[in-house]
């Protein structure tokens, strides 16, 4: 077997160490002045560049970790603030609605049409304020994770919601199609909230051009993975560029004058799923009009 030039062997060894991630490896100066010497110095310089790039990557990763931690702290502070504000606003909001109602009842005969209209607006605004405050408080409770979760099947959480909304769906000429759901588990109260938000949104944002159709279905887990579920409607849909922003708190695609809603529904829905260990997203590649929300849930009971 022919022997290899020891200088070439040294080069091979250096290349192997670089490939293994040892970018600090170097060869001693080669004063041969020939091609091998040139390659030696070239590889040493390459090692310096790789080492510097590795340090930069570690520094970048550290910076990202720090910024992520800061963002998480900031989000947590905001959520606590929202919860505190919502808690303090609850009673005044309730009083406004209560006294508006009492005024309407006690002084209806003495009011003209404009007065009655204003009182009705006041009652509606108080109800809306109450709904937003309730939504904020529910979101904050989910964020805290303080309440003990009552785990059960997603299909069982869907049933009461479907029954509750059956009348509204039928009244607008729509239909709700529930396909067999896979074995998927989550916090029952949270999942009821999730289905209520998704189905209510489908009802709220239905298209005037066609009868509403809502489908709920899913597929079982493969291997150790989660089960997949979806709620799809044929309504107005969500533009793809808003696929993420719709899940932000108080982010609405339409003003409250066009469509009622607190702007918290999808943020709550996502928080529920994440708390169960899953993910919720808008399927931007779904075929046909409307919106398809997909989410994953654990396929086994905790």
């Amino acid at each position, binding site marked *: 077997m022919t022997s290899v030039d020891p200088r070439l062997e040294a080069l091979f060894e250096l290349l192997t160490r670089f490939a293994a991630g040892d970018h600090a490896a170097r060869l001693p*100066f080669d004063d041969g*002045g*020939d091609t091998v*010497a*040139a*390659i030696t110095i070239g590889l040493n*310089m390459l090692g*310096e*560049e790789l080492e*510097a790039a590795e340090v930069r990557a570690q520094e970048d990763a550290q910076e990202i970790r720090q910024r992520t931690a800061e963002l998480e702290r900031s989000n947590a502070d905001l959520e606590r603030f929202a919860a505190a504000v919502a808690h303090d606003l609850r009673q005044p909001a309730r009083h406004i609605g209560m006294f508006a109602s009492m005024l309407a009842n006690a002084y209806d005969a003495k009011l003209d049409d404009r007065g009655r209209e204003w009182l009705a607006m006041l009652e509606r605004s108080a109800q809306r304020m109450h709904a937003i405050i309730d939504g904020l408080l529910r979101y904050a409770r989910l964020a805290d994770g303080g309440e003990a979760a009552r785990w059960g099947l997603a299909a069982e959480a869907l049933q009461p919601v479907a029954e509750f909304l059956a009348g509204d769906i039928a009244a607008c000429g729509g239909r709700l199609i529930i396909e067999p759901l896979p074995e998927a588990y989550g916090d029952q109260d949270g999942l009821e909230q999730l289905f209520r938000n998704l189905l209510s949104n489908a009802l709220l944002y239905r298209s005037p051009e066609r009868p509403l159709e809502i489908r709920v279905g899913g597929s079982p887990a493969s291997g150790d993975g989660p089960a997949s579920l979806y709620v799809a409607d044929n309504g107005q849909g969500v533009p793809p560029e808003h696929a993420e922003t719709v899940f932000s708190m108080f982010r609405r695609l339409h003003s409250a004058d066009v469509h009622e809603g607190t702007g918290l529904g999808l943020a709550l829905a996502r928080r529920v799923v994440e708390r169960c260990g899953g993910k919720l997203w808008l399927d931007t590649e779904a075929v046909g009009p409307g919106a398809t929300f997909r989410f994953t849930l654990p396929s086994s009971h905790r």
Partner: protein
Amino acid sequence: MLRDGVTVVTMAEGAELQREHADENMAAMLELRGDPKLRVVSDIRGLRSADKGARDAGASDEFASEVACMALVVGGSVTRMIGTFFLRISRPKYPTRLFTDADEAERWARSFSG
């Protein structure tokens, strides 16, 4: 050395260029110059190595603010490797060319109007 408006720097035989040397060279060149920006011929035929600090200094914004162009005179494989690495990897922000002939390098630098 300043020759017809061109600053000529010759590396000593066996020199191992490091960051502080690059800074010293720049300081010396600035003392010599007459033009607003330096036109440099750097003869590195005697160079044995140039570490990352020296290469980064040569490619820095600070150097670029003082240098209009740089002609690198290279010789054998080793200095050709060093010159090519500086040109292609360090990427100085001023016009840089490799030459094997010192006179041709000076003519290029002298004619360089930036």
